[in-house]
């Protein structure tokens, strides 16, 4: 665990100093909202349309950011150093996934209020705790899958393209569950309670992929 937290600290510090990924992801989300406004020709969204726009944007922003997750390790030889250390390989997975989770959290801190400002019709204050809960659950899933796919794609020649191509289908169940869960919160007539079945599905998705990732990660980083 100490190794994982050391790696996590390194990644967070790196991002804090270089500011490569997170600002770009956040800016992408805001731009996407503007694009949606023009593309859909709508000024105010509610219900399932609002949930859809929010989640598609967050997903695309995440997929944009995950490409860079392992690039530093690969290009600057950090991976070889890690492999030489007598440390459980899973620590790298945990560290990277937590880093991606943190990045996503920061991006959403910017994106969700901007969304509420630009496009969302009904007020989201009353349903904020539930919204945060859904965001958290979904983010875990995105982080796990994103880390896995990033590790897979970093060794390929066309990694910028193949990362999104592999992650997006994998994240479709997550998208379905998150959007369906968020829809009642954004209804025009006032927030309705969230159907727990969708939260359960999000949880199941997270659990399955977390276990899978842990089982399979060793084969991705050995040499």
């Amino acid at each position, binding site marked *: 665990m100490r190794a994982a937290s050391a790696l996590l600290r390194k990644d967070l510090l790196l991002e804090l100093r270089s500011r490569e990924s997170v600002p770009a992801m956040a800016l992408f989300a805001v731009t996407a909202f503007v694009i949606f406004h023009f593309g859909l020709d709508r000024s105010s969204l509610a219900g399932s349309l609002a949930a859809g726009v929010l989640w598609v944007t967050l997903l695309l922003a995440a997929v944009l950011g995950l490409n860079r997750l392992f690039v530093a390790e690969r290009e600057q030889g950090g991976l070889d150093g890690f492999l030489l250390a007598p440390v459980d390989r899973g620590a790298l997975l945990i560290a990277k996934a937590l880093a991606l989770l943190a990045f996503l959290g920061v991006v959403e801190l910017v994106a969700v209020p901007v969304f509420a400002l630009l496009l969302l019709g009904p007020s989201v204050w009353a349903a904020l705790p539930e919204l945060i809960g859904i965001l958290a659950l979904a983010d875990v899933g995105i982080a796990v899958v994103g880390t*896995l796919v990033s590790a*897979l*794609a970093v*060794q*390929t*020649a*066309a990694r910028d393209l*193949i990362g999104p*191509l*592999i992650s*997006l*289908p*994998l994240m*479709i*169940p997550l998208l*379905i*569950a998150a959007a*369906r869960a968020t829809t009642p919160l954004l209804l025009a007539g006032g927030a309705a309670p969230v159907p727990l*079945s969708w939260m359960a*599905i999000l949880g*199941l*998705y997270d659990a*399955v992929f977390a276990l*899978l990732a842990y089982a*399979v990660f060793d*084969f*991705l980083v*050995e040499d």
Partner: protein
Amino acid sequence: MYGRGLRPLAIVTFGVLTGGLALVFFYAPLDADQGLIQKIFYIHVPMAIVALCGFVAGGVMAVVHLSSGDRRWDLRSYVAIHLSLIMGVGVLVTGSIWARAAWGHWWVWQEPTLVSFLVVFLLYATYQPLRFSIEDSHRQARYASVFAIIAGAFVPLNFVAVRLAQSLSHPRVLSSTANLPGEFGVTFLVCLLGMALLFATLWKYELASKHAAEQLRGLRRRLSEVEARSPEPRPAVPAGVGGPVP
């Protein structure tokens, strides 16, 4: 190795498929609701089931590959996934034709099985680009197996999710294959068996071909090494010595 038993398998496959076809058009009664169009069901659904099982089987073979280190399982996994993808094209095409005939549109989102299949297809379509963009062959095999495992686990998860999403908004139109009456059921099962046998036959066939090609490459490499090590080339051998390999 893979070619053994291929001929009897192919003959049995042909027999079952022909038998199934005969059953479809001469034995199974006409469906009350959909009429003749329902006959498409007998190739569409078996193909879908076999393709999905093929994807999952590819994942299982990948697990064996990673745990045993035996590269042959990677080849088997690759061929299974490759074949399932091709079958997937067939599923989408026949599904689309069926949708057009039954509902008037070339694509319908109400049909959860068809939709989940599209998602699975999109995922597996990245398998070959992923494989062939990794140069080192050992790493390629390893990463492909990891992908096959993740994707194989994803298939059931995706089906559950899409089914749940659709069931709340649209009633399922695809007849439940679990409780098919009499003649429908028998015909369906024969077609399913035929499709499964077809998959197995083509799998063995492609494996035999790939295996042979691989061995040829190895042989060629060894022979050119031998040639490289030998002294200056002698004059040509007179005709009659040796000959083309049969």
